[in-house]
């Protein structure tokens, strides 16, 4: 059968649509994010948006074992700004504790995180963009780490202004991860619009 120690094992479960509004499948964490940044690239071209800076649409490896892929590529790109997207827990399903996990609902819009790795002026730019475009937002707090590639980009290259846009997801790390179609669309739109509100040369410094 050709199986040896070290072979990788994945679930066979694939993608499905639930009640016309939920994407369901394994590894939507974070294939959904890969899709969203790819869609941003598609929209920029189709709407003939000419960005006044270099855009690096990055699909990193090794996040799940410690943000290692992002760590490597951050050093290579040496970016001036990093907007990271990943999934976050929807806490509106049975047995979730909002006191411990916060209050985030799938279907109610992208999440933004406050925390040490998130640069507040960049975060405010994202929030202002959401307001200006009437996009829904949910706020979250991270005490030390976001646990996402945001941490890797933020702490690379002597500090890169970084922020996190999160897609709420039910049943993380199961084969039936669920995300809401509208949240996916709103995350894409939020990244797309935010990019058009960044000017080359901005350093987002506090003082």
């Amino acid at each position, binding site marked *: *059968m*050709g*199986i*040896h*120690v070290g*072979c*990788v*094992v*994945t*679930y*066979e479960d694939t993608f499905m649509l639930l009640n016309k509004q939920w994407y369901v499948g*394994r*590894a939507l*964490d*974070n*294939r959904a*994010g*890969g899709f969203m*940044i*790819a869609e*941003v*690239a*598609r929209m920029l071209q189709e709407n003939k948006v000419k*960005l*006044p*800076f*270099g*855009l*690096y*649409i*990055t*699909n*990193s*490896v*090794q*996040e*799940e*074992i410690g943000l*290692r*892929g*992002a760590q*490597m*590529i951050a050093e290579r*790109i040496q*970016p*001036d*700004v*990093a*907007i*990271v*997207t*990943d999934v976050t827990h929807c806490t509106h399903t049975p047995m979730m504790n909002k006191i411990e996990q916060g209050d985030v609902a799938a279907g109610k819009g992208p999440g933004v995180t406050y925390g040490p790795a998130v640069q507040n002026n960049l975060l405010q730019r994202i929030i202002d963009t959401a307001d200006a475009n009437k996009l829904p937002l949910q706020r979250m707090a991270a005490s030390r780490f976001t646990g996402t*590639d945001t941490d890797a*980009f933020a702490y690379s290259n002597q500090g890169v202004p970084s922020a996190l846009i999160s897609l709420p997801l039910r049943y993380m*790390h*199961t*084969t039936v991860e669920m995300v809401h179609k509208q949240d996916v669309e709103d995350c894409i739109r939020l990244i797309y619009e935010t*990019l058009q509100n960044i000017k*080359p*040369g901005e350093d987002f410094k506090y003082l």
Partner: protein
Amino acid sequence: MPVRRLWLDYVKPYIDEHIVDTYGTVVGVINPEAEYKVVIEAHADEISWFVHYITSDGFIYLRRNGGSDHQIAPSKRVDIHTPKGTVKAVFGWPAIHTRTAGKEARPTLKNIFLDVGAKDKAEVRRWASTSGAS
């Protein structure tokens, strides 16, 4: 098809050039000549398992690759990715009839296992390598 190949093929019409790094990260670049650089990022990898120990009677125990969930494993169907292609397997679990109510084992990394339908370790490993390594 590997997800990163699929992803690169999808974004290629919308980018000017791309980077593939040593460990497989893929980057699509628009305006590569610009000095000021903005990243938008998502991770490509998914959680999975590694084959860790093959018993003499052909069952397979695993290690985590990322935060894989032992509680959901029993009764799931899987793909084992070998150098020769994908092999199907299942996470077996003792039947409810054979368990003792109130004293049921919970799935943990120490008791979940794969059944590939092989009669012994030799069959699991056949054609795996010629070196005799495990």
